[in-house]
């Protein structure tokens, strides 16, 4: 039986003279993310590609312009993306214990019209997907968050969020690996280390991994 033809259309855009952005779609979607991760892995094998980073539904490709032109690489990306995606292997499962006593818990509960216990129940229910690792070392964009917990980012970002803070924003959740500025709502904390500077790769999560949160007493 012939393989079904893929209908994924890839758009490619220049990101300067030595990188391009290949966009597979614009929706937060596990299937698109799986394709992006597979495309990045395939591109990394090319000699003219220096790095390929999967986004939610895109791949950022750093290439050597002495070895390949933008147009030739864009054509190669379209060919690779039209191939049937490999079977998605389930990523590693990380079990993350969380003390749900974050400084924004009360405010989040008030805005959502839920009590803290319900927020904990909703937040610990799904097995989240690591859509991408990036922004700061070890940060994983996790989702999708249950719709009932969806709310916009804080109006005023904090200048310093403690490392290990468990946070939500939009349809996403995440854990701050390092003390950095941040605009997400802090609902809990974990002792699990996400940034592992003396390991290679230096982080716990990889794109495609799965994450389950557990409530523990403080």
């Amino acid at each position: 039986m012939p393989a079904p033809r893929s209908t994924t259309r890839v758009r490619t855009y220049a990101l300067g003279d030595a990188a391009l952005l290949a966009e597979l779609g614009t929706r937060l979607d596990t299937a698109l993310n799986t394709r992006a991760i597979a495309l990045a892995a395939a591109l990394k094998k090319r000699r003219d590609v220096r790095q390929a980073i999967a986004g939610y539904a895109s791949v950022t490709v750093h290439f050597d312009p002495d070895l390949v032109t933008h147009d030739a690489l864009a054509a190669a990306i379209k060919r690779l993306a039209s191939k049937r995606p490999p079977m998605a292997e389930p990523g590693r499962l990380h079990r993350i214990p969380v003390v749900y006593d974050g400084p924004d818990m009360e405010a989040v509960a008030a805005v959502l019209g839920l009590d803290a216990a319900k927020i904990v129940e909703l937040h610990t229910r799904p097995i989240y997907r690591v859509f991408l690792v990036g922004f700061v070392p070890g940060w994983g964009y996790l989702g999708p968050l249950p719709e009932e917990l969806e709310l916009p980012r804080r109006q005023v970002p904090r200048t310093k969020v403690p490392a290990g803070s468990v946070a939500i924003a939009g349809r996403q959740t995440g854990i701050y690996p390092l003390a950095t500025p941040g605009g997400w709502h802090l609902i809990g904390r974990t002792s699990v280390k996400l940034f592992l500077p003396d390991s290679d790769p230096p982080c716990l999560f990889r794109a495609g991994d799965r994450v389950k949160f557990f409530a523990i007493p403080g």
Partner: protein
Amino acid sequence: MSEVLRVEKPGLFTTLQDLGRLSAMSAGVPTGGAMDRFAHRAANLLAGNDEGAATLECTLNGPTLVALRACLVAITGADFDPQVNGEAAPMWTGVFLSEGDQVGFAGRRWGARAYVAVAGGIAGNRWLGSLSTNLLAERGGMHGRPLAAGDVIIASGVPAGPTIAGRQLGPDDRPSYAVHTLPAIAGPHVRSLDSKSRKALFGSGFRVSRDADRMGYRLEGPTLDVTGDELLSFGLVAGAVQVPRSGQPILLMADHGTAGGYPVVATVASAAMPLAAQLLPGDELSFSEVSVEGALRLRATQRAALDSLKS
């Protein structure tokens, strides 16, 4: 391995940098590396090294260094009035030092970052494949921190090329640092700007704000209005011009966050990043739209200048 220089005074902010760690981006670790890669590469070639050897990136002023043995150094990039034993020393030139000679900098004339290469390449802590200093992780370079008084600079090996003092890179072969117009290629989300904002992006002047460091520069100038839905986060590159909701663009530099979701409306040509690296808060700049081909021609010109140092 041999001890070549002792740090008497470290300078304001001096770090070891090489060409960065692109491979660590998938872990969210910034690429890092020299901000002005042309000056970094040229310094290495003038000292007879591979282009990727570590150099000292000196910010706003320079260190005071004493030669522990005879060695060849090269100073490039910003002009902080380099001196050897109190006498003006040429920049963009291989300079021979005898044991006991003192290298210092009398004061900033222009630019933000000078580079010091040492024949043999500077040794340091390698982290994720690079000697570049990452301050957030406290890894790489000189124990993951800026230089401090009393540090000893070690040459990592036998110089890779001829160590002939007096080799020079002429002014015509250097980037035109005095020009603050940065050629930039339209970005993936340039269409999210309305026509007035697009004109402003490529036609107006901007100023580097006080919020400017190795991660990026917040720019002040006309407000750029972006329309459309929030974007899903994607991988970023140095040189990208992001527009957050405030409408004040951010130019991403060597230590930029690896992913983000703000629209990228332009990306500075790689050949113009050395110019960007030499800008300081308060400096004016503008962007001129260039094609990918045009940007690659500028890149080839710089490549040829560097290659002329190899023969």
